[in-house]
């Protein structure tokens, strides 16, 4: 079997073997979203106003907390070392891994955001804009957080360290997305901003796997 085939089969088996990982981000999102009214106020007008931003931040956190585990188990068990012996460049394997991660963990998460939107009474048109921004932005976010995860593999117990390292880099994405959301609630044109967001994602998805590959090799080399 080709390396790609084995790789994808394994990712699929892992999802099936750890159903918890699949549902956890969604669960986290909904929980955090339902904590917001408790801490703030049940007033649905106020909630609707800040709702889309809250959902964005919560989704971001849910993503990040999941991404932290991207390479860790394989690193600890020594499976990651074996990637180097496959007859493929490392960045290609990283691309495969990240694509699987996006497909299996991120897309399902995006699909439950409308539920969160309902709970915070976010208007429908804003919700649609939110969905589109998430779909466009998450490839870039996934790549960035993978880089964070890869960089902090060798550290004592990184936990969310990788996330923190990368969070500042998310600022442009967040600002763009917030722009889209404000415009959507105004009813003005959002296409140019969406195009920018998409371009950012494409650039990230082509360039960052190389960096992730280098970071992985560094950490494998440093462990004994």
């Amino acid at each position, binding site marked *: 079997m080709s390396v790609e085939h084995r790789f994808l089969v394994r990712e699929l088996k892992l999802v099936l073997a750890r*159903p*918890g990982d699949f*549902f956890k981000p969604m*669960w986290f999102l909904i*929980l955090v979203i*339902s904590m917001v*009214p*408790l801490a703030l*106020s*049940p*007033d*649905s007008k106020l*909630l609707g106003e800040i709702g889309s931003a809250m959902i964005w931040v919560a989704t971001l956190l849910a993503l990040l907390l999941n991404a932290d585990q991207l390479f860790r188990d394989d690193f600890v068990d020594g499976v990651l070392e074996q990637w180097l012996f496959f007859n493929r460049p490392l960045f290609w394997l990283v691309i495969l891994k990240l694509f699987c991660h996006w497909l299996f963990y991120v897309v399902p998460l995006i699909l439950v955001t409308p539920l969160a939107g*309902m*709970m915070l*009474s976010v208007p429908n048109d804003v919700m649609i804009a939110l969905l589109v921004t998430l779909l466009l932005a998450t490839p870039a976010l996934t790549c960035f957080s993978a880089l964070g995860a890869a960089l902090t593999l060798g550290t004592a117990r990184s936990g969310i360290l990788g996330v923190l390292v990368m969070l500042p880099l998310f600022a442009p994405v967040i600002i763009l997305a917030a722009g889209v959301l404000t415009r959507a609630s105004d009813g003005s044109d959002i296409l140019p901003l969406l195009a920018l967001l998409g371009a950012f994602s494409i650039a990230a998805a082509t360039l960052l796997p190389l960096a992730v590959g280098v970071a992985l090799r560094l950490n494998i080399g440093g462990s004994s």
Partner: protein
Amino acid sequence: MGWRWFHEWGSPKWFYDRAGRWQRVCGFLALALLLVGTLWGLGFAPADYQQGNSYRIIYLHVPVAFLAQALYVAMAVCAIVLFVWKMKLADVGMQALAVVGFGFTVLALFSGSIWGKPTWGTYWVWDARLTSMLILGFLYLGLIGLRSAIKNPDLAGKACAILVLVGVVNLPIIKYSVEWWSALHQPASFKLTEKPAMPASMWVPLLINLLGYYLVAAYLVLASMRTVILDRERGSAWVREVIERD
């Protein structure tokens, strides 16, 4: 005598055989009652003078919401039995109750929020009762998640029992605090309607349905307990006999 009875209850084989019979009885009775109650409620009960026909959701919503809470209490009883008497069957019961209870909670939440649309004009408000129901749903979800995450069934059972007990101590506190919270901010207009004085033709079908849903829950819990028992006792001789028999 009494102790033997108790012992028999703890024996999976005995329970498996009995539960099969009870389950069938519950199923048929439930089907009959629900058919009567629901048809009556949907077609024959008079329309509400305020809410019109939308109030007919009550015949599903109220029994289901009631059961969602009752099943959690049943689960807490199971947890105590598991800790005090180490009865394996209690653990099986807890597992079955969590799934069924979660199903009922989801149903109560969705039926309530659909009902909310015609009455309040929105699917969801942060009302006290709704919020505590939501939290109950999360508790159920936590139990299911915890159990599925721990592979060893004995360990999973005890871990879930701890969680159930902590949850049951906390539930009244949650309920109280949520009520107080929503009273603090909430305009009174969105409170669930106080129970109006209903004519008998309205509440009799409700009662029938309540009984029906109780039996449905019993049916589901018994069926699911039998499945779990079968899976856990797969090494024992009696399971093999049972399987060879049919």
